[in-house]
């Protein structure tokens, strides 16, 4: 079935790059996505005006994220929304959501060089690994 997410936001902190026991790179980070303020939208009155969305990237994309993404950078993410359940410290079953990225694009300027970075797009290219939608 279809599950596609498109997000643009800023990194809340530096990405965390790790390797699974089998050596697959995994990058985790969160981006802050501002809500477009709608004063008339009653359902948003009580809610905060930014969503912090967890992102996870695998393999080559994970390495690229770990290398180039920094706290505060604007970034575009394409992926799918995944709900995972886990057992909390108190032994209770919890669910957490994350967006599994299959595409990442850095936006804005490179912070160090000052030159326009243009569009550095890194797509997840390893197909058939069980993580990627086959379309």
């Amino acid at each position, binding site marked *: *079935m*279809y*599950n*596609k*997410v*498109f*997000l*643009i*936001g*800023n990194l809340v902190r530096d990405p965390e790059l790790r390797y699974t026991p089998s050596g697959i790179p995994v990058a985790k980070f969160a981006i802050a*996505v*501002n*809500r*477009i*303020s*709608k004063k008339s*939208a*009653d*359902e948003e009155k009580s*809610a*905060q005006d930014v*969503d*912090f*969305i967890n992102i996870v990237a695998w393999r080559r994309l994970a390495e690229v994220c770990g290398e180039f993404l920094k706290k505060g950078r*604007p970034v*575009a993410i394409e992926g*799918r*929304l*995944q*709900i995972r359940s886990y057992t909390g410290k108190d032994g209770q079953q919890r669910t*957490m*959501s994350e*967006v599994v990225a299959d595409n990442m694009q850095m*936006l*804005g300027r490179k912070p160090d060089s000052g030159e326009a970075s243009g569009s550095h797009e890194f797509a997840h290219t390893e*197909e*058939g*690994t*069980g993580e*990627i*939608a*086959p*379309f």
Partner: protein
Amino acid sequence: MANLNRIILVGRLAADPETRMTVEGLPMAKFRLAVNRPMAGGENGVDFIDIVAWRRLAEICGQYLKKGRLALVEGRIQNRSFEDQTGQRRWVTEVVAKNMTMLDDQRSKGFEPSAAAAETRGPVSEAEEEVVDDSDLEGDLPF
């Protein structure tokens, strides 16, 4: 910074939608969508994603969606926190629907023709808000 938050889901309803009115009298519908993961190698997965709809769209969801129906939902991801009975802070992720389309064969489920008109009316009213969104978006494009 122009931010973007869009999601498109196709899945089946895990249960009938729950509808209620807020204290302000605003219709609200909640339901859970079962979305199969696109797994290539054997392992099957499913994500149960909570959807919330408001106003006219909520009424339509409550009226026509039933457990097992196939639906396409467009909206945005929202994370919000609340305090549970033990006073602990919990986070929930839900998709706030802007648009919903039923994908089942409607005739086989006793779907009435008049309902089709209602279905198109609902999402259109939500779409009007989206136009306002887009103008806001363009207004603060920094690059």
